[in-house]
């Protein structure tokens, strides 16, 4: 097996031609990556480094053609549901209706990551008074004005309550533009009081039964809105089937993460792993194809692991990453600095955990929604991160702040201190803007310092464990 290489977009042109000459088959959305830059305006692709496998090519093409899929779904008579904030629950609910296609309109968060900041969506957000003191999700507001990045959904559904203020405020402005939003409540997850009935959540957390009941009832209202949109109730076992299919994706992804994050040699770059994890949220609008894409990725990773080849050297420091990055290039930078991704918490760990199949479906989805790391305390979040970090054997933790995000001002310090104390790993908190060119040297220096610290710690592994704050 050839040693995997890291490719630029230019490199991929030649690689694509070679693969085609060798008979590589592609799904209908296949093609060279460059077209997304030239025709789609995804200018930031030119700044990224990619994995060279056909599986990664399919992954990228699947991700970058979602808008086409949504427009085709509408043309085929599907109703479009635009979910916001809950990250992983509403799409499962809606997939019980064969004529509904769901996507996350707050996925617009990623528009500047792919297209840069000189885009109409951000200009429109500015014009509407939602400036860059908000997190990149403000692109969502502009996208509703320009209509360029996704078709306007037939139904908008957004959770409110224990959520970030940026998204909530932006979604409210979207409603003010004349796009009604169906709001449903997500309470702040608390500990059960003494003697109070409670329920175990996916991922190991616990919530009072009263809160699970509230979320179940609220999801019941969402289900009502979906029934109205579809014009009928779902078939009797459709929701159970939807949960089983979602779990298939989650289990596949779980297997991929375990392989990628625990193998002695890193079999898949951080950037592609981030994209894979994102698929779990709403299957990139095509659940069946999503499973196929992930299956390809697993096959690639399994063959690399079996052959003992990787994309980085053995000395790469194992890093656990917290929060999504507003500039995808930073995932490349981690590897350039000598790190490798070994575990993540991108604010949607509840979309990776299996949905319970041994309880009534609405109850199962309520428990899953309540497992959202953002609705609980930083302490609980740190506990989960510590557990996963230990499981994946990570040697360092990066907490990536989202610029302007209401939660990031506070949680990084709390989570960092707690994980450092529990796991004894060096911790680095950085802020990644949507366009990192100006701060890249500083980010590089700080990541290098973290990697060096972890390497020193590795050498001193026989010495007593100390807590370090890099």
């Amino acid at each position: 097996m050839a040693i995997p290489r890291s490719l630029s977009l230019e490199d991929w042109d030649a690689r694509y031609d070679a693969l085609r000459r060798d008979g590589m088959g592609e799904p209908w959305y296949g093609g060279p990556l460059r077209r997304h830059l030239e025709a789609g305006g995804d200018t930031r692709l030119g700044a990224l480094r990619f994995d060279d496998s056909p599986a990664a090519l399919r992954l990228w093409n699947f991700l970058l053609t979602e808008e086409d899929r949504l427009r085709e779904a509408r043309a085929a008579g599907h109703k479009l549901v635009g979910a916001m904030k809950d990250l992983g629950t509403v799409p499962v609910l809606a997939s019980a209706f064969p004529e509904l296609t769901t996507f996350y309109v707050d996925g617009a968060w990623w528009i500047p990551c792919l297209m840069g900041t000189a885009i109409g969506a951000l200009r429109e957000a500015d014009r509407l008074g939602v400036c860059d003191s908000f997190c990149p999700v403000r692109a969502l507001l502009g996208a509703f004005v320009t209509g360029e990045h996704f078709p306007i959904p037939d139904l908008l559904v957004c959770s409110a309550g224990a959520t970030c203020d940026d998204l909530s405020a932006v979604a409210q402005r979207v409603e003010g533009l004349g796009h009604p939003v169906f709001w449903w409540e997500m309470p702040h997850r608390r500990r059960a009081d003494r003697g109070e009935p409670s329920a175990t959540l996916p991922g190991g957390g616990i919530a009072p039964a009263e809160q699970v009941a509230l979320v179940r009832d609220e999801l019941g209202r969402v289900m009502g809105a979906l029934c109205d949109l579809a014009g009928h109730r779902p078939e009797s076992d459709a929701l159970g089937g939807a949960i089983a299919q979602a779990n298939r994706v989650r289990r596949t992804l779980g297997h991929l993460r375990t392989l990628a994050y625990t193998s002695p040699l890193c079999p898949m770059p951080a950037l592609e792993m981030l994209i894979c994890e994102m698929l779990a949220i709403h299957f990139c609008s095509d659940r069946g194809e999503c499973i196929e894409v992930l299956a390809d990725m697993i096959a690639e990773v399994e063959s690399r692991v079996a052959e003992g080849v990787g994309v980085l050297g053995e000395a790469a420091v194992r890093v656990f990453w917290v929060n999504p990055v507003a500039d995808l290039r930073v995932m490349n930078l981690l590897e350039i600095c000598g790190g490798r991704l070994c575990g993540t918490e991108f604010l949607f760990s509840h979309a990776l955990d299996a949905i319970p199949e041994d309880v009534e479906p609405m109850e199962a989805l309520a428990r899953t929604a309540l497992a959202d790391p953002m609705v609980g305390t930083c302490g609980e979040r740190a506990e989960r991160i510590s557990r996963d970090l230990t499981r994946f054997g990570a040697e360092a933790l990066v907490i990536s702040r989202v610029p302007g995000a209401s939660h990031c001002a506070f949680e990084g310090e709390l989570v960092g201190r707690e994980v450092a104390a529990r796991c004894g790993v060096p911790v680095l908190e950085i802020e990644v803007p949507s366009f990192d060119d100006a701060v890249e040297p500083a980010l590089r220096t700080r990541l290098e310092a973290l990697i060096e610290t972890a390497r020193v710690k590795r050498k001193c592994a026989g010495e007593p464990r100390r807590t370090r704050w890099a």
Partner: protein
Amino acid sequence: MITVACSSFFVPPEWVAAHGFRPERLIPEAPVTEGCVACGEGMCPYARAMAHAALRDDVRAVVFAPTCDQQRRVAELSGTRRQDAATFLLHVPRVARSENCRRYYRSEIERLGRFLVEIGGRPPEREFLIETMSRFDAARDRLRRAAEARRLGTSSLSARTLAEGMVRFHRSGDPEVIDTVGRGAGERGKAGRTGRRRIALLGGPLFETDLAFFDWIEVAGGDIVLDGTENGERTLAAAFDMARLGDDPVGELVRAYFDAIPDVSRRSNDGLLNWVRDSAAAGRIDGVVLRHHVWCDQWMAEVPRIGEVAGVPVLAVDSSGRPDGRTRTRIEAFVEMLLAGVGG
């Protein structure tokens, strides 16, 4: 009397008082810049000050009812920092038109009652609860009437004096403190208000130091006839319905607080926008000064819509909580513009 501090207008003080405690609304005097316990970049200065205020050791417990993300984090911090661990987080549902949420708010009020009993309070006798609620209701009614009299021009109370009275009411936990509102203050005559521009002050919570806004606006030639900040009349619970109060006191708390208080955190927040529209029309408002804390997404995002529904010019001023010349100059320029009849 033992004090229980409350962070928010969604915690009914009469409920705390009926359990035998003195309810005190936490209103920080000024921002905190030294010895900071929540000093991360991007931290709202008010949330940071609350984090400090909640650590006071002269209160038995702190009840948080956060309406924003950062206040929710502050509640967590308080829970881990307070030695007695007497911190209670009351979840105020944001979704306004859900019967599930209404029920949940009621359940949270009842859970707060159990917490208050656990920390040494007594379960309120029904008659005592009704009597306590009635006393607070009467005090709020007097505050509302004082505000209305200012709008009608039949009161000589200054806007600042009224605002200070509101703060004193929230902080004291004593409805009778209303009797002292305006007492001893140097009042401006009613005649002194003619020709001034009628201003609505809107926004989130104010530090005590922010009361300087009232003076600046007055000196510039304006008159705040509507205080829609978090300390002002906007967040006063609705008047109790005495017939329903007797049948179901807790249900009446839910109606007067959860159903009735218009706030920017509600989803949808059309309750707030309707309140702004109606109040601006009824108060014959000439302009709105919207004051928000730096990093407050909720208020910042709504500035354009508030301008639309109020139908008058809006000046949005961010503030770190320290009165500063830049803000004062902007306010003066805004009022001058209104006086000159520009932008109306």
